[in-house]
């Protein structure tokens, strides 16, 4: 082994990490240090700066409460996973907070969840959708419309119309004959927008406006006449991966507010 080769192996030795020194080639390179003062000087210099970089990186400390919060979160996730495991129908749908939490609520939630699953199943059969077992389990409780929106967002390439103001976006949607959130016009008028996109949902137009506030969020709108499934009358919340969804309806339209995060992160628009 010549000096150049030795340097190659010695570079792999991390200061204070014994495991790196066990390789036979590294051992051989280390042995050369006794016979080659120049190599030793180089190695010590390299080790010194490696130690400073490593110390610098390992001085990064999480916030004080990080460990406790993480542990608490893990138990909560575990509990939720256990709770949801037997019933695929109840593991994704959550109902909005109500002013009271009477005991009849839990029964109502259970019944409503069963109805939602039945509606989804019936709708899927009616529209001729093929659902194998895996798909059914993965999407149970999630309305087809929400799942469709989630899929489209995952695959979308860009916006059809860009604008930082809602006015031009509403005009654009109207010009395309796409649904625009009429009932929310006052609410979103002063919000900073990014633009909008229109999806083809079973032959109907599903529009989505993207906003940038403290975070990114989106409002999708579909005319109720184009809905092919029964959806809850009141606001309902869903979680698909890291994306939270809130769906509600007014007299003429169905709206979905969505953003990356959880139900608690969704902005209060209405």
């Amino acid at each position, binding site marked *: 082994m010549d000096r150049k080769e030795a340097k190659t192996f010695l570079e*792999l030795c991390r200061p204070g990490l014994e495991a790196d020194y066990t390789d036979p080639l590294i051992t051989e390179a280390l042995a050369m240090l006794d016979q080659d003062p120049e190599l030793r000087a180089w190695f010590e210099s390299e080790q010194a*700066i490696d130690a400073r970089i490593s110390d610098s990186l*390992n001085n990064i400390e999480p916030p004080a409460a990080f*460990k406790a919060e*993480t542990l608490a979160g893990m138990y909560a996730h*575990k509990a939720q996973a256990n709770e949801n495991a037997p019933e695929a129908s109840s593991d994704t749908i959550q109902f909005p907070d109500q002013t009271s939490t009477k005991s009849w609520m839990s029964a109502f939630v259970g019944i409503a969840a069963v109805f939602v699953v039945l509606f989804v199943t019936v709708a899927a059969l009616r529209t001729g959708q093929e659902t194998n077992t895996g798909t059914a389990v993965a999407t149970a409780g999630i309305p087809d419309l929400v799942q469709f929106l989630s899929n489209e967002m995952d695959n979308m390439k860009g916006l059809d119309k860009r604008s930082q103001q809602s006015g031009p976006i509403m005009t654009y949607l109207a010009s395309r004959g796409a649904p625009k959130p009429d009932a929310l016009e006052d609410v979103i008028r002063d919000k900073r927008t990014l633009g909008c996109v229109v999806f083809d949902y079973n032959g109907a137009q599903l529009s989505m406006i993207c906003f*940038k506030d403290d975070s990114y969020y989106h409002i999708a709108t579909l005319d109720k006449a184009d809905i092919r499934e029964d959806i809850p009358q009141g606001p309902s919340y869903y979680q698909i991966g890291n994306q939270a969804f809130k769906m509600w309806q007014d007299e003429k339209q169905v709206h979905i507010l969505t953003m990356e995060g959880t139900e608690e992160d969704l902005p209060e628009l209405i």
Partner: protein
Amino acid sequence: MDESIDTSFDSIVSNYYQPLYRFGYSLAKNEHEAGDLAQQTFFIYAEKGGSLRDKSNVKSWLFTTLYREFLRRKRKNERMDNYEPELLENAGGSIEPEVQSTLDGNLAVEALAEVDAVYREPLSLFYLKDLSYKEIAEILDVPIGTIMSRLSRGKAQLREIFKRKEAETI
């Protein structure tokens, strides 16, 4: 498999919350995202860790999960670039000023940020010193020989940048 390995949540978190947070920080370059990545990793473990057959692989599994979660979010942020061009700069990991001034480790993170992208993750894991070369290769899904050569080239860059930054702070 080592049957004596303690895989209780308390043990897992105690052993790995700091290295995972640091790895997350080196990737995301901000405190909030680092914490989010590390916690998300533990939450995934809470739900799926029970199915991990070889408990001795917990450490590699956690690092791999965090890295994949980072890549997933990065891809999503890059899609956001289609919405608005300047978003990539925001999402791409600029260093938060308040973090810069409060964390000693930021000098290394700053230096890492200036290294060619392909070398960053191997170098981060190398200097964190929690993993063997074999484990680093597995986590980054790159052959070990490639890891070695990337480390060699990346270290040369990083050392120069780090020394310059050290001199600037004096």
